[in-house]
């Protein structure tokens, strides 16, 4: 551990252009330590008292920062909602990232943990909270524990930081599930209201924010909203981390300005490795989009909306034309059905049924009936769970039926599907594929 500079030895310059979050990443894959972090970004501006807290919330509002966990909710509105409650709030940093095709949050935690912690501390200080809990998967625990120890040793923060390993199931990251787990219960979603901002950890008003969101907040606290808006669009400002995988030369996590054409992101990854006709955009609650239209689209919710898509979990998978989109989606549908928290009847029975329907189409035989079942069942499942798990699965399956319509015809007609590749492209965690064969 190198010495932490007492005074900044040089003027800290806000990063111009990209990258913002991943700028200091070391070549050896190890985390940036506290000294190197402070050399790069400078010390976080102190937040003491109500007025500077209000000022930070105002800066976040002016920056137009939206949550980076999936829903894109305005961060300032969430901060204000927590601040308006009675009682001392708690901050929860959501680094669970249970989305199999997404690794951006794990990458951020692994490489620049102090940027995330800066954001957690700033948000907590702005709300008058004195505790921030970082919830992560097992793989991120050691880096976070070490980073927190480093900060404690150098007395960096007035906020108590702790790290907790959360279960690595798909629904554990849903914020009511995470709160339930932190309160000693199972990591299962609860019926709302109350929402976490009303009653969360230990019954206190709780701010739950994704790790990337807080990393951006840390930079807004330092460099201000005008700087934040120099990247991105007016409606969706800033940069964003995206996980790109599938048939690209260099799959991985990329930082792009929001509104960048998808074509440019694919080019950054070295282009496609083979012909690609469709991409999954937004993770497993996302939508399949035809490649021709998607490549021209801007990577923003506004840019993807005309195609019926959204950024969602910011995971994008390029499907090789040699793979079967129906079979790929059926596999994921089975996974999502198995990952249902098992609490709500429509989700338990409905997701299992639609996953079987899709598998029926994919494997041929009874395809026509399976398609009729799907058309009846899919619209019935939307909004029927305590959380949005069924809604997300329905969106994915419905988009597969749209985008792979010609393939569905081939399967239902029991003719040969145009796919020849057998290797699955969309990842499904091993423990389930082992059980399910």
């Amino acid at each position, binding site marked *: 551990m190198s010495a932490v500079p007492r005074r900044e030895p040089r003027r800290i310059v806000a990063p111009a252009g990209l990258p913002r979050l991943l700028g200091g990443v070391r070549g050896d894959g190890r985390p940036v330590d506290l000294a190197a972090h402070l050399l790069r970004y400078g010390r976080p501006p102190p937040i003491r008292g109500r007025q500077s807290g209000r000022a930070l919330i105002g800066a976040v509002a002016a920056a137009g920062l939206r949550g980076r*966990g*999936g*829903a894109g909710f305005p961060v300032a509105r969430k901060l204000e909602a927590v601040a308006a409650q009675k009682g001392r709030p708690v901050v929860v940093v959501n680094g669970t990232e249970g989305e199999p095709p997404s690794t951006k949050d794990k990458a951020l935690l692994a490489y620049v943990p102090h940027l995330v912690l800066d954001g957690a501390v700033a948000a907590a200080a702005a709300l008058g909270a004195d505790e921030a809990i970082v919830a992560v998967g097992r793989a991120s625990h050691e880096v976070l524990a070490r980073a927190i120890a480093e900060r404690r040793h150098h007395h960096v923060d007035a906020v108590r930081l702790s790290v907790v390993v959360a279960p690595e199931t*798909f629904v554990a990251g849903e*914020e009511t599930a995470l709160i339930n787990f932190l309160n000693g219960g199972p990591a299962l979603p609860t019926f709302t209201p109350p929402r976490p901002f009303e009653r969360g950890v230990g019954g206190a008003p709780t701010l739950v924010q994704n790790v990337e969101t807080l990393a951006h907040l840390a930079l807004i606290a330092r460099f201000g909203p005008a700087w934040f808006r120099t990247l991105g669009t007016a409606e969706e400002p800033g940069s964003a981390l995206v996980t790109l995988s599938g048939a690209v030369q260099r799959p991985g996590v990329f930082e792009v300005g929001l509104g960048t054409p998808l074509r440019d992101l694919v080019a950054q990854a070295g282009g496609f490795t083979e012909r690609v006709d469709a991409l999954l955009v937004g993770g497993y609650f996302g939508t399949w989009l035809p490649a021709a239209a998607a490549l021209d689209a801007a990577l923003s919710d506004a840019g993807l909306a005309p195609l019926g898509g959204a950024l969602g979990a910011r995971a994008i998978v390029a499907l090789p034309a040699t793979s079967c989109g129906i079979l790929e989606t059926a596999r994921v549908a089975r996974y999502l059905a198995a990952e249902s928290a098992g609490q*709500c009847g*429509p989700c338990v029975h409905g997701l299992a049924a639609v996953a079987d329907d899709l598998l029926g189409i994919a494997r041929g035989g009874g395809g026509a009936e399976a398609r009729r079942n799907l058309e009846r069942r899919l619209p019935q499942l939307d909004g029927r769970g305590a959380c949005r798990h069924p809604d997300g699965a329905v969106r994915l399956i419905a988009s597969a039926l749209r985008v792979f319509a010609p393939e569905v015809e081939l399967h239902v007609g029991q003719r040969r599907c145009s796919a020849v590749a057998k290797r699955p492209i969309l990842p499904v965690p091993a423990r389930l594929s082992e059980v399910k064969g």
Partner: protein
Amino acid sequence: MSRALRVNPIVCDGHGLCAELIPELIKLDEWGYPIVSPAPVPRRLAKHAKRAIAACPVLALQLAPAARLSGASSPGEEGDAGQPL
């Protein structure tokens, strides 16, 4: 304030009594779980709505402000399982 019927899907076991008592607003899916209309309960059905609420063996049915059902207007409508459609 207009109110709509709302089922707590975690508590609901699909007994199905509600759909018999107020079929105008509640239908059952193929597994026997209620599909509840998000529309405000009209005055003429208020009595039936109350009876359906009272009849639920697990107390899963309630009246909630109809506005609350209109989507992602409250903070915290997010997380992995929470993107708006």
